[in-house]
């Protein structure tokens, strides 16, 4: 029973972290600006 509870706790933490991440990124995010010329990328 203890193991099941521990597994549930770990699962709840994982789900919580994932939810926070999703909620954060679901807000509008900055995409690279619209330009005719652009770097391959930025480090």
């Amino acid at each position: 029973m203890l193991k099941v509870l521990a597994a549930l706790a770990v699962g709840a933490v994982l789900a919580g972290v994932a939810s926070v991440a999703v909620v954060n990124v679901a807000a509008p995010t900055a995409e690279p600006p619209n330009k005719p010329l652009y770097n391959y990328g930025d480090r």
Partner: protein
Amino acid sequence: MLVRLGPVLLGLAFGVLALGPALGPGFVLRYDMVFVPDPPVRLGDGFPRAVPSDQVVAVLSAVIPGEIVQKAILLGLFVLAASGAAALARDALPGGGIVPRLAAAAFYAWNAYLAQRLLIGQWALLLGYAGLPWAVRAVSQAVSPAVSPAVSRGGAVRLAVALLPAAIGGFQAMLVSALTVLPVAALRQKGDRGEGGGGGRARAVLTTAGVLAVLGLPWLIPALASVARADAAADPAGVAAFAPRADGPFGTLGSLLTLGGIWNSHAVVPGQEMPALAAVRLALALVAVAGFVRLGFVRLGFVRRPAWWRGLATAACAGVLIACAGAFAPGAPRALIGWWAGFGPLRDGQAYVAPLALAQAVGVAVAVTALRAALPAPVAVAAVAVPVLALPTFALGAFGRLGTAGYSEEWRRVQAVVNGDPAPGALLSLPWSAYRAFSWNGGRVVLDPATKMFSRPVVWNDGLVVGAGDGTRIRLAAESPRARRIGALLAAPEAAPTTASPTAPLSVPLSVPLTASPTASPTASLTAALRREGVRYVLAGGVDENTFLSRLPGAALVYRGRELLLMRL
């Protein structure tokens, strides 16, 4: 049946979840991923980076619409990766049941490596990644010729089939595969049927090397010819540009261990740097590594050390070392590339972390097997979802980073005009920069589609510009000799005013016509020089038409649209 199809269905489900909006109508265009309607079958100038992937896509697109081909490839990556990892886990844990296999499948089809390489558009490399578990299995199952030459030939054929995705992907996919399968062949352990001794190993290495060489011929021949002619340039500055970087709080090494660390900060999934998420991924990686190590050193009843274990462990360590070299000892790859351009592929070292991903996937299966013994089955099954929870923002096309777009009618008309002209001559694509960010593509950065669209040689600036993160830019020399010559023409002092900005190589095609005198003589010499270089068409996007045309007297305006301008010299 469900046990057999489980990993396939899981891979398909993960593919649908990860690609999301990218499965809608239109093309997915992002960084190096450029698919175009009706692509021609042709070889390009310069280093054969897209050989034979472009040609295979062109042939398939002659039968099936290109956008369907692209979506099938992208979904196929997930299915192939998941089913392969599950098959390898089955080899390692033959009595382990379906749950560990699904856990391995889930991990291999949903991790930072796959996400980042997808977001930078390197689907061809991912073909090699997806086929990697199948290639490892094929190498380890190939028996010694001493047993039976006929069976050995069958093993070589199986290996060739397993390496086919990598062969289609081209040079980078094959290099990652070679890094993995050669150690597996060399360090293969004696199996249950007595195969795999010393002599067998030597033959297995030769057979594996032979299959790799034959499948690599389409790009190997032009690449080596180019290097031998000394017209291929691999700028050692690329080591600084493409070295792995920290994409989370645990530094570059922590990023690599969690299968991330790609050089491009725009190729990470949103929120990837969040400490909590990074900590979950690091914990998962450590558990996975522990599981893989345990598989190699502990005899666990039904668990046995697979024949490929030592080889895969060696390949994983070698891959991490190659990646680390760019970040922690850049002098070594710089010296190698400076000595011989053939070492150029070492500059993007994070690509070689792929065998570590496979080793970790197997390690996750081992860990889940142990978990199943300790926990009720439904709880253990939930472990399959852990990779998704550790990288949740890979879902839905990384929350819009991947999406679809349709080419405007202008592109199709220009393509029809140029490809309908039987006269020889190259097309010069301007502005003189490799990457674009079109409004119709949602501002996503993508390689110039002109590089794939025309049936004649296309001259484009394959010299790359990478933002260094401190406001400066790292500029790499162009690889194609003709691109270098034409780049010099466009940037020549007599063609460009001395008042051009310090960022001239990037902005010359736009700034020069806007500021040069329409009556200046250099314009006439530019037209003539381009003709001498074999240029027949100039395609320009986003330029000031009136001033640009003045630079090319004698050129006929073939097409004028809001976005594109096509001139024939």
